[in-house]
């Protein structure tokens, strides 16, 4: 296996043209995705970094795909802005990897995921062609929107070299609460209540504890209004959903990192709907987990991937392994789809990206 670190799009095109199999790597932070690619030339994008264009007044940013997510977040926060899909800040995660794996943190709850904030991209496809998809302005309806197609595409269709996102002004202040419930059903009822209420939460996660289930809720806004809003939210929740306890927590980045307590073992992302959680719980058999984004994303850490695979298959759910030694990063229900195959025929007919 040869390892290449292209410094430019042209070099990357040459790598794609000259090799039968190419495997793209950002900084290699998602180890599970790099297990089964023996014999493929590896293209590491860690050298293609940097913000190309950032105009805070346009709410848009364009950057190279190998740029660490941390660098982007730092640049945005200097201008009081953020990427609302809340890319997960692993030590070295790149923005390209974030898009390819469709990874978003808890704050995705408020405004949407990666697909909702990607505007355009430059890519190199399996034929070594470099081209642009989507646009660079916040609104564009011309041509097929292949930029969204790249979200979750796992590097199998084209290699992203440059990405454009929509960004938003960030809130100046945050407050976080933990609401404790007994059984899962009660915590879910509280989620449903919030879903139909006009409370605008910045994030909402669901976590299992020793004695029951808890909701973690975060409000974002102005310093001067937050105390009142927290009070209104707490009293409505106390009145309508009868929690055992409500406690205000010190707001921090690690509190809202859904992976903070999931070190060790194989890490798996599962997209599901809140009503699928009870069945999923029954099949999980005690793996460490956290439900993020109002119960729409499950993060699971387990040493028994095969068991999880079987459980997912039973429920017709798909999981994406991000860390750990697995045969295939995708487990559970397969993701093959006829429409995706048609795109593959055009972008990577020789299956260079596997």
């Amino acid at each position: 296996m040869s390892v290449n670190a292209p410094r430019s799009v042209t070099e990357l095109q040459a790598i794609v043209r000259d090799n039968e199999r190419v495997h793209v790597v950002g900084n290699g932070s998602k180890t599970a995705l790099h297990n089964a690619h023996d014999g493929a030339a590896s293209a590491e994008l860690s050298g293609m970094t940097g913000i190309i264009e950032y105009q805070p007044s346009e709410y848009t940013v364009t950057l190279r795909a190998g740029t660490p997510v941390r660098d982007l977040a730092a640049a945005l926060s200097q201008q009081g802005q953020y990427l609302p899909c809340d890319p997960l800040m692993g030590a070295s995660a790149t923005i390209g990897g974030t898009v390819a794996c469709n990874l978003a943190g808890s704050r995705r709850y408020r405004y949407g995921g990666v697909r909702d904030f990607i505007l355009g991209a430059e890519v190199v496809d399996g034929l070594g062609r470099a081209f642009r998809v989507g646009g660079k302005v916040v609104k564009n309806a011309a041509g097929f929107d292949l930029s969204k197609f790249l979200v979750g595409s796992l590097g199998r269709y084209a290699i992203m070299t440059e990405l454009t996102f929509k960004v938003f002004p960030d809130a100046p202040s945050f407050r976080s609460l933990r609401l404790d419930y007994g059984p899962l059903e009660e915590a879910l009822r509280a989620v449903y209540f919030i879903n139909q209420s006009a409370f605008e939460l910045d994030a909402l996660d669901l976590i299992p504890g020793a004695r029951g289930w808890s909701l973690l809720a975060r409000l974002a806004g102005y310093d001067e209004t937050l105390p009142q809003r927290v009070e209104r939210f707490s009293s409505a929740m106390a009145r309508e959903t009868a929690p055992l306890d409500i406690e205000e927590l010190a707001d921090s980045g690690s509190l809202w990192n859904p992976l903070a307590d999931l070190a060790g073992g194989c890490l798996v992302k599962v997209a599901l709907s809140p009503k699928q959680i009870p069945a999923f719980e029954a099949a999980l058999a005690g793996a460490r987990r956290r439900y993020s984004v109002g119960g729409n994303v499950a993060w699971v850490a387990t040493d028994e991937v095969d068991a999880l695979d079987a459980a997912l298959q039973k429920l017709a759910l798909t999981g994406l392994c991000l860390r750990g030694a697995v045969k295939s990063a995708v487990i559970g229900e397969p993701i093959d789809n006829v429409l995706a195959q048609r795109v593959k025929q055009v972008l990577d007919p020789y299956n260079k990206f596997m």
Partner: protein
Amino acid sequence: MNRAFFAALESIYPPQRLLTRDVELLPYESDALTAFSAKPGAVVLPVNEAEIVDTVRLCHDHAVPFVARGSGTSLSGGSLPIPEGLTIGLNRLNRIKKLDPQQRIAVVEPGVINLSISEAAQPYGLYYAPDPSSQSICTIGGNIAFNSGGAHCLKYGMTSNHVLGMKVVLADGTVTKFGSESVEGVGIGPDLIGLFVGSEGLFGIALEITVRLMPQPEVYRTVLAAYDDLGRAGDAVSMVVASGLLPGAMEIMDRLAIEAAEASVKAGYPDAEALLIVELEGESIQVNTEFERLQGIIQQSGAFELRVAESEAERTRIWKGRKGAFSAVGRLSPDYIVQDGVVPRSRLGEALLAINALKVKYGLEVANVFHAGDGNLHPLILYDGRAVGALEKAEALAGEILALCINLGGSITGEHGVGMEKRDYLPAMFSEEEIDIMQALRRSIDPREIANRGKMFPGGEAPALKLQGLHPLEKAGVISRE
């Protein structure tokens, strides 16, 4: 369309849902872009999914081009019939199959009217966010095809951002599903929803759509600011953005558009060169604070009048004027072209000045209505189609506006799509190779190129109208402009 194809259609549809007589076909000649009209070979009105699938398979087998049509409100000619092709009217598939307020989702058929979803969700305190101006009549199927936007998409996105799952029939008759009931949608694997939504009917027909619903904001604060200068209204938008506020909508109308809307809706708009509508929404406590800041900004921006909607009825009236503005221009001029370009927000002022210069150059009136928050311009070019050469002149002006948008780093369409109207401009935005790749993609899904043939791509078997003179198909009487 040959005899065998017709016979097969007759086996799917009873006579009252298979329209073939002139009197039945004429009303389907145009959508909301009346500069183009073409008589379809037949119109069918399916009432269920199976009929749609059978029809598409039949079209594929006989290589008959088809266009799916909802309420025919496309402003880019997206549902213009294909001469001698089949028009598939989907408006009778109008059931909301499921509404789950707890998970905030609805599952709908393609012919469901956009606003009907919000009406059905209303008792649960929810609504469907994308709000194109035609939301009282446009269908979700059409919204999917053209990734429709609306006044509120700066904050919450366009149609694509609100679709979680779909079942579709591809142009070759293959039926497939993708997405889920999770807000993650596809979640793992390429985002096929993002690819399908906005494909302008070239990939196939959406049969069933899962959309996400949003909680109705606790309060709206809708502000109407009047300016004696269009540029100043544009600057106000930049000031709002710079302040860190994120309004649900920011809209600008110029004098001509104000006059038309006023004549139509009597919204009580002030007499001004430009109006800026800014709408804040959310939790009352938060919005009240934002509103104070907004008032300060607007006062600084040189507005000569500031009005705040005091009731839901007043808010509705403000929006009704804005949403009816396109059609209201019908009161000022027998014909007009609605343009749909995007420029970077910071270059709005520049774009408006340039459009003013073009007005003078061409001697035509242009009314401006636009989604200022996302730089989406909707210049309405007024002309009288009965005057010789007037349409050509209007189209030339429209073309210059699009070129301007591209030069300023924007796009030829923000939300109406390329359709029939702008296919000649696609090469101005994408390279030959990029268009080739899109074409290849289209052919891999639709090898016979039957789905909405003649739209989006320049050239092809039904080339676009040139800016001067009659098109060959017009000369042949196959299509006509009125």
